[in-house]
């Protein structure tokens, strides 16, 4: 006879199998990064030579610096613009609200390749129209590069920030703001002393999210980067097209560790969120 409280084991088995599926390739890479041989098909002894080569490879470090600079600038502006949009959307009852939220939210569902080609076309049109003129009048050389990458990154990151911050805004009770005003606080005082502290975990989470997305992005960057500047994903991709260079194994392990730390921090933020909710 079946127990009343019997639960099928199937979901748990499925979960475990999925985790195996998710981690096996990563573990293979991690192990390979310490293997003297190149593909891990055979263990030819423990070695740190891939890590040594990684740290000697200047091209990787240049790409990493570019990636981080882009990610930091893009995160700052995306967080700012995204938070402003969330505040506006939260308060507004205006007729334009529908259009505004479509503008903010549809980038989340537009394939990145389309955003990439669209931005490339826009930049090319602007450059071919104003580039020559700018060079002649102001002596400013305009071209695809870091600036266009940053603009593109801000654009696709800010929607995520808005989504997270707006979620946080909707979660807390609107009457708290009314209470602050009732207790004599001006609009600005209320914003800085009540609204901002309450939504700050959302803003931080949104910023972390943008930072990761920016570091992660390949496709859009690939379209708008121009000839010169390289980011880490671009570097890895071009290295991969040439073969399967084993230094990337070492790089992957470092990235994985960074991700674990980042996820851990975000989880802590989420726990904090629960505490606030009550």
């Amino acid at each position: 006879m079946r127990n009343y409280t019997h639960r099928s084991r199937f979901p748990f088995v499925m979960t475990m199998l999925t985790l195996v599926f998710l981690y096996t390739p990563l573990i293979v890479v991690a192990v390979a990064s310490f293997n003297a041989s190149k593909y891990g098909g055979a263990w030819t002894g423990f070695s740190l030579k891939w890590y040594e080569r990684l740290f000697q490879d200047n091209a990787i470090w240049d790409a990493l610096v570019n990636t981080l600079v882009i990610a930091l600038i893009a995160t700052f502006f995306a967080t700012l613009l995204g938070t402003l949009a969330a505040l506006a959307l939260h308060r507004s009852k205006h007729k334009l609200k529908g259009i505004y939220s479509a503008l903010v939210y549809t980038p989340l569902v537009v394939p990145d390749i389309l955003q990439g080609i669209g931005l490339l076309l826009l930049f090319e049109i602007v450059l071919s129209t104003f580039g020559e003129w700018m060079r002649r009048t102001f002596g400013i050389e305009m071209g695809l590069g870091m600036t266009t990458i940053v603009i593109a990154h801000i654009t696709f990151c800010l929607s995520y920030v808005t989504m997270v911050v707006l979620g946080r805004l909707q979660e807390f009770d609107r009457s708290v703001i009314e209470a602050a005003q009732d207790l004599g606080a001006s609009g600005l005082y209320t914003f800085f002393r009540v609204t901002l502290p309450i939504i700050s975990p959302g803003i931080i989470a949104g910023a972390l999210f943008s930072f990761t997305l920016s570091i992660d992005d390949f496709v859009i960057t690939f379209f708008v980067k121009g000839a010169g500047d390289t980011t880490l994903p671009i570097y890895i991709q071009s290295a991969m097209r040439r073969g399967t260079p084993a230094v990337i194994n070492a790089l992957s392990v470092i990235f994985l560790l960074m991700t674990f730390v980042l996820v851990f921090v975000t989880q802590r933020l989420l726990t904090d969120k629960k505490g606030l909710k009550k």
Partner: protein
Amino acid sequence: MWFKKASNFFVGLPTFVWLLIFYALPVLIVFLLTFKPVDSAGGIGAGWTLSTLCELGNPNYPLIIWRTFWLGIVATAVCIAVAIPISYCLSRMSSQLRNVFLMLIIVPFWTNFLIRIYAWRVFLHSDGVFKHLLVLIGLADESTVLLYNQWAVLTVMIYTYIPFAVLPIYAVAEKFDFSLLDAAKDLGASSFYGFRKVFFPGIAKGVWTAVMVVLIPAFGAYLIPDLVGGPTSELVGDKIAQRVFNDRNLPHASALSALLMMAVFLPLIGTVWIRKLKSRKANAEVADA
């Protein structure tokens, strides 16, 4: 609040303008370029034409479009099929255990996309450990190539999108009232029947989100077929990049992108519209009662 309206306008303005210029305008340009001719220097010609759209009919494209669609749909179906039991499992765990498992699922999601693809290149490599294993148990021979085909593309797609599917479904499942399942059993339903008739409708909204979240990047996939696929597994995304970087045929690339966009937006708008219609109907019924 009446005295907030003006300030609200200025709070919202910068982002609005930014997105208008760097999001709405580029998308518009893509659509417009579809109807522009190409000139010999790789630029945009004058006038308007429908020839680009006609060229999409050449035998090469339908095959690629078809392949993009079926790979996307299969990948989505598999991801959803896996994500539902996982979400169920996670939401029934104790909160400590749940956090650990959730983290384990999120980590690959946050790991650099390229590194995930790279890991598969290593894993499926002809000199790799998996291949050796397959040869050892007789499922493959030395000459088998695991990479550079549709199956590799599909596998890596599923691999990358599983966390995308789990998160929205889990978010809904976590709030599901599991005593409803007990109630279903109490009323004589089997576990599976209860799952199908009570749990599934309860999480349907999350499943829809998951479908969208997986289907959209799957249709637009460029990197995965580029890196683990071969000439026989090209997708629309590869073609767009080729048209931009190899032959400099921007109208062609635009037309393909526009097609991709329609493929994403039509079902999306359809879903939203159906939901609206349903809720309006429900509201009308409430009003009648």
